[in-house]
């Protein structure tokens, strides 16, 4: 069945360091994988997506890596800032043409000043 889960519920990183947030998924037929950021009291905010036929995609200070062999997704945030403190969710679109996002349980990232 569909499931998306995270390895760690919390992660603390020193300001300025790089952070890596990991996610495992089980549905090998998923079409897109997405990372969202949710700050306290706010709705999820899109960060970056990656299609299943890619293994790496870069954005501004973020990189998403997809390893389909082990069904693993990661989000790397470079030079973390206090504003990066949030809960990070990975999500997937289970199959082409599907409307829904299936979210994982989230990792709370805390940036230590």
């Amino acid at each position, binding site marked *: 069945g569909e499931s998306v889960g995270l390895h760690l519920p919390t992660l603390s990183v020193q300001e300025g360091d790089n952070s890596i947030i990991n996610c495992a998924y089980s549905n090998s037929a998923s079409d897109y994988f997405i990372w969202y950021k949710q700050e306290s009291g706010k709705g999820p905010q899109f960060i970056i*997506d990656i299609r299943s036929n890619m293994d790496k995609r870069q954005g501004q200070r973020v990189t998403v890596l997809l390893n389909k062999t082990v069904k693993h997704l990661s989000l790397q945030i470079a030079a973390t800032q206090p504003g990066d403190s949030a809960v990070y969710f990975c999500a997937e679109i289970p199959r082409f*043409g599907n*409307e829904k*996002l299936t979210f994982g349980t989230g990792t709370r990232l805390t940036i230590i000043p």
Partner: protein
Amino acid sequence: EPEVTQTPSHQVTQMGQEVILRCVPISNHLYFYWYRQILGQKVEFLVSFYNNEISEKSEIFDDQFSVERPDGSNFTLKIRSTKLEDSAMYFCATTGAIRNTGELFFGEGSRLTVL
């Protein structure tokens, strides 16, 4: 920057009462969604809506739930007879993308507390 706006920000209701949560999508967006998040848990899909009809719904979205876009702007979620377990944050999300790549624009949510 355009944003999705939701009202009310917080609603407290008695079990069995009807509630309507409202969303104003980003103006040129055509695809609308409701998600919910029970406190401390993950975000769950409820329903997607396009061209004035439901395109997909989850098992959570039973007969007690309905959606509509009554005036062409507001997108509403109605819970006919609330239960304690309906207490959650409800997020409206929209996109203008023809193909769903997962980039949705979420509102700030409506917190529903059922007593």
